[in-house]
């Protein structure tokens, strides 16, 4: 899994330090489910330098931009892409597609 490889590389680059945790931003629109990711993370870590490390996920809600209000708002429901203020439909997603490693906890 690319996330584990990435953390291993970073660990090697820093002289083989131990990685305790990976911090990940996960958007609601990333197409990845948190529980599935947590489960596969454990499996992917087995037999690597990251075995026993933790995956800490920060979920990012979907934010859309409304051209009418010229403002961002959080989406109340993934079933309805509309502005939180005026209710107009909008498909301009500004946040919520993230699948991004933001930090590592190392020794």
């Amino acid at each position, binding site marked *: 899994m*690319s*996330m584990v490889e*990435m953390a291993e590389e*970073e660990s090697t680059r*820093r002289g083989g330090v131990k990685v*305790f*945790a990976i*911090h*990940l931003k996960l958007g609601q*629109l*990333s*197409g*990845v489910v948190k529980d599935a990711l947590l489960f596969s993370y454990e499996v992917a870590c087995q037999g690597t330098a990251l075995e026993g490390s933790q995956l800490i996920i920060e979920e990012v809600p979907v934010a859309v931009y409304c051209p009418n209000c010229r403002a961002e708002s959080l989406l109340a429901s*993934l*079933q*309805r*892409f*509309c502005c939180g203020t005026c209710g107009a*439909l*909008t*498909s301009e*997603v500004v946040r919520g597609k993230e*699948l*991004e*490693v*933001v*930090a*590592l*906890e*190392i*020794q």
Partner: protein
Amino acid sequence: MMSTQPRLVEVRQNVLKQNDLLARELRRRFREAGVSVISLVSSPGSGKTAFLEKALTLLAPEARVAALVGDLATENDAARLARSGAPVRQITTGTICHLDAQMVEHALAGWSLEELDVLFIENVGNLVCPSSYDLGEDLRLVLLSVTEGEDKPLKYPTIFNTADVAVITKIDLAGAVEFDHATAHRNIQSVRPGMRVFEVSAKTGAGMDELLPLLSARPAESEKVLAG
């Protein structure tokens, strides 16, 4: 003395960076060769292959078309599509539930992109995982058959949100399953406001004429077709 307490270091790396970079490179190659690339996503059994078979047959007299088809197993789809006369290659993914940019790149080996006008990429039947993977395509079509129910877009908003155009398939069966057109359209607009929607039957050919200009358009033109 060095602290043994864990410390936090910032990294900021997109997990799918490798795929995104490869997809960007593919897109550059496609543009340079002047081939427009259209991917198809849907649940299993929505009629991607039947739709593709019809599209290849209708486009073949006018344009140089080819297709890559993804499946977990079997070469059945490639064999079926080859009847259209277009070059077709099967990508069997084994246990992987989606295509990624690297699989597409490998499958293109030996093909001269300059000799093509339109390349179709049929993804593995799945409405979840394919949404995360950019394949370098210009246009992503999401297919929804009338037999699946009008609320499919609400159940899988992510894939509808990452697609450019929705195609409702098997409309020849709409009456038999009492398909509610208005609700289906409303649900699509709710998860992807402004999305263009086409209704087709690959079996009877109904609605294909309206869709063909979009499929055979060059990438820059297809934006105009979509806007108009």
